[in-house]
């Protein structure tokens, strides 16, 4: 189990992470979802003992990241956001290096890395610096796994990766989870929240909420209307001028509208949009997604 209590990291007067508390259960796939600058990387460096907290503490399976940092490093596998392997070593040499550092060998733990490593094994003599983005990602994951860690900490593994590769990567994480590895992962893509057992939404160094992704969206109480018309951009402009509007944002081909009142008068809205000259207007009540909740929580905080 991983337990963070009142974890804080300051740089001068800048609070990178403020009073963050959460718990991750053994075997869980736990996601930190938030944009760049939210504090995800700082948090992950604290978790892996690479940074010292300004205050508060975090324990992994009863080990303190400050006092027991050597043992922490034996049980954690960390994949940083930037590619951090040796570009002038081959795929196999990189893997062998990490295995040796942790006192093990590729053979001994091959069963752990097999699902990931088999994709790049045909290229094992290629220099790591010459790999494609997707292959680098798989090598970095193999190197993070080679010492059979209890916890895998992955900092934005899917950033800048196309939709198909992202889907494949999440399938790999699912298969690692089934081997009992606890996985903590961060992502700026809100649509990936649904692939985690539980998620924390993080923004400006604070946790906005922590729960199962389904629970976060189903407990959202405000009414959201999904509205479509012939010109989305003009529709957005009209909706922002609608007297009862709280906020309106484009979501794909729809505009998601949230009003001040618990439920909007749809006839009134249709008439208004008609007057504004919109054609083919469709209004439907829709369920909130993670991004709707995130936007609403952030705006609540900003007042």
């Amino acid at each position: 189990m991983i337990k963070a209590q009142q974890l804080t990291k300051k740089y001068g007067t800048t609070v990178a992470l403020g009073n963050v508390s959460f718990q991750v259960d053994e075997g869980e796939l736990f996601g930190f979802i938030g944009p760049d600058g939210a504090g995800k990387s700082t948090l992950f460096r604290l978790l892996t003992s690479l940074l010292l907290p300004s205050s508060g503490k975090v324990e992994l399976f009863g080990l303190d990241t400050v006092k027991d940092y050597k043992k922490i490093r034996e049980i954690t596998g960390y994949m940083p956001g930037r590619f951090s392997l040796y570009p002038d070593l081959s795929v196999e040499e990189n893997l062998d290096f990490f295995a040796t550092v942790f006192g093990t060998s590729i053979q001994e733990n091959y069963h752990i890395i097999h699902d990931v490593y088999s994709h790049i094994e045909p290229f094992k003599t290629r220099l790591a610096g010459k790999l494609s983005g997707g292959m680098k990602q798989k090598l970095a994951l193999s190197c993070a796994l080679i010492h059979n860690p209890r916890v895998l900490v992955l900092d934005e593994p899917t950033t800048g990766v196309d939709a198909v590769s992202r889907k494949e990567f999440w399938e790999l994480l699912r298969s690692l989870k089934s081997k009992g590895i606890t996985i903590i992962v961060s992502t700026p893509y809100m649509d990936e929240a649904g692939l985690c057992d539980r998620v924390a939404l993080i923004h400006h160094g604070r946790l906005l909420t922590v729960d199962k992704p389904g629970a976060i969206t189903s407990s959202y109480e405000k009414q959201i209307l999904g509205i479509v018309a012939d010109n989305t951009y003009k529709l957005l402009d009209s909706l922002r001028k609608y007297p009862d509007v709280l906020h309106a944002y484009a979501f794909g081909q729809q505009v998601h509208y949230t009003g001040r009142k618990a439920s909007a008068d749809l006839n009134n809205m249709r008439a208004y949009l008609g007057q504004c000259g919109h054609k083919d207007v469709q209004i439907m009540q829709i369920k909130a997604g993670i991004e709707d909740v995130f936007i609403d929580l952030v705006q609540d905080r900003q007042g």
Partner: protein
Amino acid sequence: MVKKFGGFTANHNLNFEVYKGEVFGFLGANGAGKTTAMRILCGLSVPTSGEINVAGYNVYTHAEKIKQNIGYMSQKFSLYEDLTVEENFRFFAGVYKVPPKEIKPRMEETLTNLELLNHRKKLIASLPLGWKQKLAFGVATFHNPGIVFLDEPTSGVDPVARRNFWEQIFKTAERGITVFVTTHYMDEAEYCHRVSIMDQGRIVALDTPQSLKDKYGVDTIFDLFIKIVRQ
């Protein structure tokens, strides 16, 4: 348009037109050949064969003219971190030969539209990512180019800033500037007037988002992407 590197073909016979004032989404898997194609369109790389015109100029004979008549912004590099907001505008205005008398009023107008006029003396390094992206876009379109190329412009920015950025894109398109954009956010693909999808060096789909979804019987561009890439 064809581009070969030795025995490897990065772009296989790409055929497409992008219209003036259009927001064109250029989608594809990593390694599909998007960057290669963008570099050719920006006059930075010479194609192996094909006929290509950008902003009215031929890529073989008028690459320098193309560079003067386009804007470019990427997630990786766009502004000088150790210069202020104002200094970045002045620098790029100089590079793109904006008449000196017009720089100040146009900069003030642009910064007012971006709601960043009060921050013009600040170093880029001190600004939040969402602001940097807005500014980078303001700089890339400052010389009123015929077309602006945006390479993953919203990568990593928060959901509100991402949406504000797209509203800026539409305002720019309404000014008659063509927008050519790549993204890995599939919801953003839905905002484009038309999208193309590249896979293994080929354009495998090109149409309006709605027509493509109808044709493949899917609800979203995300589902479409999963369905047709690497099949």
